[in-house]
């Protein structure tokens, strides 16, 4: 916070920005040595974001809308760019939007990655992105009343549930195909994911020509809840529940955003413990995905075996945190539980067993004859599409981009180690799976390294005071990719604004391109390869537009078709 100018990383980007847009930059504010918020004129916003994105190796990490009318009379937008060129840092492009006309120039035409964020800020704050090609609702349901913007400070109580204004869904699904297609809707309770989503596959025979989908059927209003009801420490437990698989990554990201904002120096030992637990979480998450890859390629014995071995990672979490899943270990300023000598020894023993057992299972998986045929060359994500949309995690690394928050912007205990980054050039499901396999073994090595020489000292600092209206980013590399949190403290022992962006949010927009050109039977496998959370409660509706008939089949049938690939349900 109070760092000297010499240690600040990212100044060349600001110099380049000032040079290219001489009158646009109004102010720069440094939150940490590698985090800077640059205020630009609203009119130059798209140009500033595009310059950093395409000319200086920036990737769009998140965008935050904020109702700052009580502070400065305006709404604010913060476009968070992860700079991954010569200097690794975060540059946040900030602009104020007038509360009178509520309009801002859309960044999406220049940087496609901004599309979901701008649709969301339109829903939540009623700000109008002028020039946004896709003006459909993203987060709010179709039956939500017009003019009620949930995240505005004066709009509504977090418990309020407005009456629906329409009986049926009016969402328009986009089909870019030139040929005549059949529509295959999957969902609203969806294909392979816990989170219900409505998929529309536009197919020509068995081939997917285009796809569109609608998410946020179970939007839980967590940001509003945190801002209105909970204290700073309580939100760490709420963040634990953002995801049922990788919740701890969110908890760390949230805690570090507040710590960065207030300039809190978290003890090294706490940081190492956070990293150890993050890797524990990655192990069980990657084993889950590997198991599901087996399942969707029809290799159910492998699925059972991976889940059996995964139990060791769950036991490890239970021993270290007291709970198998929601670790509840973070507080602002550190962690609540230390790793004791006995636990250290048990951990080393367990991860040793995991390494040997998973190695054997991987050997079995890759030598299964059916496996490579089902995943190689399927669900291709073009590296240029990836560049345009800023996906994260194994999805982007499977398309050859070397992006890993642990290496690029070392946080928590990752500062203490050399972090290897694995990429694959195949761009297909196989590549993403291989990246996950490599990362699993990395996790074991990282835990071993951190347990070998864990820093000593306290695990929690309480030597700080909350100051109002301080803001900063906090980030982690969750198993599915970068989690990005942005917090602004308030003046009432509560957050003024908490923006939580889960990794899969950045991966959904590219899924459409991954589905194109593949067969319907590969769809569950492709959706599974971005590793959303799974559920088996779905039903699939098949609508043949040409023949004007519709047919509903159980999701089980769709899944069976994916695995066996005989007796197409489309016939």
């Amino acid at each position, binding site marked *: 916070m109070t760092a000297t100018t010499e240690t600040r990383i990212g100044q060349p980007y600001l110099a380049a920005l000032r040079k290219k847009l001489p009158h646009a930059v109004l102010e720069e504010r440094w939150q940490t040595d590698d985090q800077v918020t640059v205020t630009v004129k609203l009119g130059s916003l798209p140009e500033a974001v595009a310059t950093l994105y395409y000319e200086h190796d920036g990737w769009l990490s998140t965008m935050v809308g904020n109702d700052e009318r009580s502070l400065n009379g305006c709404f604010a937008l913060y476009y968070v760019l992860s700079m991954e060129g010569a200097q690794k840092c975060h540059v946040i492009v900030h602009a104020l939007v007038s509360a009178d006309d509520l309009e801002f120039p859309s960044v999406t035409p220049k940087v496609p990655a901004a599309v979901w964020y701008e649709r969301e800020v339109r829903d939540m704050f009623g700000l109008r992105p002028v020039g946004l090609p896709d003006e459909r609702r993203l987060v709010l349901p179709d039956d939500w009343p017009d003019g009620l913007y949930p995240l505005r400070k004066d709009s509504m109580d977090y418990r309020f549930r407005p009456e629906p204004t329409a009986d049926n869904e009016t969402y328009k699904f986009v089909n870019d195909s030139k040929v005549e297609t059949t529509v295959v809707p999957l969902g609203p309770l969806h294909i392979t994911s816990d989170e219900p989503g409505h998929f529309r596959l536009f197919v020509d025979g068995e081939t997917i020509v285009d796809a569109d989908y609608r998410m946020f059927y179970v939007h839980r209003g967590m940001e509003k809840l945190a801002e209105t009801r*909970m204290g700073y*420490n*309580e939100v760490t*437990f*709420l963040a634990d*529940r953002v995801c049922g698989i990788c919740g701890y990554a969110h908890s760390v990201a949230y805690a570090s955003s507040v710590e960065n904002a207030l300039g809190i120096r978290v003890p090294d030992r706490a940081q190492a413990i956070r990293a150890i637990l993050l890797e524990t979480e990655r192990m069980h998450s990657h084993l889950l995905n590997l198991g599901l890859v087996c399942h969707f390629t029809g290799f159910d*014995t*492998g699925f059972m*075996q991976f889940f*059996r071995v995964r*139990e060791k990672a769950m*036991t490890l979490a*239970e*021993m270290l*945190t*007291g*709970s198998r899943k*929601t670790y*509840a270990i973070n507080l602002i300023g550190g962690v*609540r*539980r230390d790793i004791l000598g006995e636990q250290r020894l048990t951990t080393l023993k367990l991860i040793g067993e995991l390494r040997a057992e998973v190695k*054997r*299972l991987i*050997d*079995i998986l890759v*030598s299964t004859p059916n496996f490579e045929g089902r995943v190689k060359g399927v669900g291709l994500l073009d590296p240029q599409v990836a560049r345009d949309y800023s996906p994260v995690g194994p999805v982007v690394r499977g398309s050859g981009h070397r992006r890993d928050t642990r290496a690029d912007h070392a946080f928590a205990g990752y500062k203490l180690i050399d972090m290897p980054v694995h990429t694959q050039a195949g761009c297909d499901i196989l590549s993403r799976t291989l990246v996950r396999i490599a990362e699993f073994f990395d996790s074991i090595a990282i835990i071993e390294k951190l347990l070998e020489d864990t820093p000593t000292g306290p695990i929690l600092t309480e030597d700080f005071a909350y100051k109002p209206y301080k803001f900063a980013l906090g980030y982690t590399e969750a198993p599915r990719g970068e989690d990005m949190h942005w917090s602004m403290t308030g003046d009432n022992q509560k957050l003024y604004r908490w923006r939580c962006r889960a990794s899969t949010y950045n991966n959904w927009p590219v899924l459409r391109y991954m589905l194109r050109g593949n067969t319907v039977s590969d769809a569950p496998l492709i959706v599974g390869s971005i590793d959303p959370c799974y559920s088996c409660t779905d039903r699939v509706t098949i609508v043949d537009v040409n023949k004007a008939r519709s047919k509903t089949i159980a999701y089980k049938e769709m899944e069976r078709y994916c695995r066996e690939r005989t007796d197409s349900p489309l016939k």
Partner: protein
Amino acid sequence: MLKLLREVFRTGEATHKYPFAPLEVAKDFRGKPEHNAVSCIACAACTIACPPNAISMETDVAAGTRTWSISYGRCIFCGRCEEACPTGAIALSPDFELAVARKEDLTKRAVFSLAACPSCGEPLAAAKEVAYVLDILTRSAASPEEAERARFLVSTCPACKRKHDVEQLARIGVERQMENR
């Protein structure tokens, strides 16, 4: 295929006998919080610490009671209550079997009586809380006078304390009040 068969035979039986045999959990597993009403002083520290508001406290002035309650349906087993409790009255147990036949059975209550202000008779705080604080202060008091003063401060309600202060000030006299300025 052979590798897989070998793996299957090597593993043997992977499942547990649970629920027909008890399932062992890790040491320090965070399960159902157990409340001990005997050591609880109804200070409400846990209700403030509880992130999901599973623990709450309700005061019934007419009946002169304060009711502490926990809803195991809302509990997230984080253990913040255990950390906040000054008397160790609530602690997480390894018990994870919480299913009940009726929803109401998920809520556990403890009723405490309120202490009245000796001056005005209005209810002030839980009697056990007042007694707990008084006990600490009288033990640490340097003199019997200080102990008596502590007793007055702890057991009197804020309104009566204010009234008392005003009366004290009025007794001092105008000149001295001006001097102190």
